[in-house]
């Protein structure tokens, strides 16, 4: 699972830039799909709440700061960590302050 953090375009990003950025994302997804490595992905809305403890207090969590914003996630198929890391090479937002968290999903037989 790839979790994308940051790299959201600034408020003053131009329409042209956004369209180009979108193009890079789509090209990346297409490349992964063709290689059979893409499973699914969703964008996340900005914001979100942190639910804590027994009382289930809802607070604004660590998601409030723009830089820590989780933009979305992909679930990908990879043989091993190395292959997964390689997939991340094409992540379009590296140049724009974005980063990726790579986590292995535990398979549960049900």
């Amino acid at each position: 699972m790839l979790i994308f953090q940051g790299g959201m375009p600034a408020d003053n990003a131009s329409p042209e830039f956004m369209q180009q950025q979108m193009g890079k994302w789509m090209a990346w997804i297409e490349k992964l799909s063709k290689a059979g490595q893409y499973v699914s992905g969703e964008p996340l809305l900005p914001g979100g709440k942190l639910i804590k403890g027994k009382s289930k207090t809802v607070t604004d969590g660590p998601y409030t700061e723009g830089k820590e914003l989780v933009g979305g996630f992909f679930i990908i198929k990879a043989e091993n960590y190395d292959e997964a890391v390689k997939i991340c090479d094409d992540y379009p937002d590296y140049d724009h302050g974005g980063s990726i968290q790579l986590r292995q999903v535990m398979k549960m037989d049900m």
Partner: protein
Amino acid sequence: MTDSRNINQIVDHLFRHESGKMVSVLSRLLGLQNLETAQDIVQDTLLQAMNTWSYNSIPENPSGWLYRVAKNKAIDFLRRQKKFKEITPHYSYLLQSEYTLTSTVNNLFLENEIQDSQLRMMFACSHPAITEESQIALTLKTLCGLNPGEIAKAFLTNEETINKRIYRAKEKIKSEEIELSVPQGKELPQRLDVVLKSLYLLFNEGYNSSHPDLLIRDDLCQEAMRLAYILTTNTTTNFPKTNALLSLMCFQASRLQSRLDDKGNIILLKYQDRSKWYKPLIERGAIYLELASETDDISPYHIEAAIASLHAVAPTFDKTDWRSIYDLYESLYKLQPAPVVALNKAIASAYATSKENALEQLLKIKGLENYYLYHTSVGELYFELQNKKNGKKILRNSFASHHFKTGATAIKR
């Protein structure tokens, strides 16, 4: 991600153009005084599209998707506001009732209404109370969807300067209470002149051979042509001079690709590969020139378009009809006695009459001491008249007043 629709299926500059349309429509709905809000809504809409489309797929009708989202955001905004009258005087009555709110907003997003909104926005951006440089900056921002960074690049200046120009323009909109409307009656011709001038300058900025980046120049020319085209499709603004301006743009733009070599250096007209000139644009230029000639009221754009047409149809540099071009420059100079016109007239006379005559005319021109092309032209004529000593001195002068990369390379040749 089984859908094979990808980015390539979206029209070039879709976001940019739709942004200009949506800002115009929303400003009409919310009132021009809320331009800022309109721009925020559009920005939000595009961000949402970018995020959603990136992960999923591009909707069947991308523009329709954008309009729907922008509409909903605008309706949300209006519902939150209780003071309709202050926000949007024209539509306040219709927006007060839930029943008519949605349909009013929907109607504004119909194709012909979108174009009408863009037209209104063009007049607002080119309001005489706003200075010329601010007019162009505002036009590029609101109608062409360029951000200050991109505009700054186009004008070889910094973002801060552009932000200031846009800020000043917006202040004027407030202080002069400029509204989104197409002027009527007597006011219209004058106001249209300002709009045409602003588009002419926008095109000129793109055509300016001193800009190092071809893509940016292309974009500016295309935007100017797109907006001029809108003016010709609307009966209120479709004057002969509107067609003349568009004709001029078509002719000049047909050479955009052949004016530069692989390294981005300027190729002079004499050395351009004429087979690379873009024929469809030349043909369109001729059509618009034809439409423009249905009048006795000859504007400078008419004459400039006619000159451009003579260049466009000339099979070779030597076979150019320099005599007619020279005569046209004479008429242009009578209409517009500016030193730059005099310079071009003199250059044409070098081919139409004699080099001595041209040099004599050039040396009489006052007011171009800081214009590099003036010194280049004088220097070149001295050279060709075998007066190399003077030529070198003048050319050095030209280098001193000109420091742009591409221009300089062309001069060295």
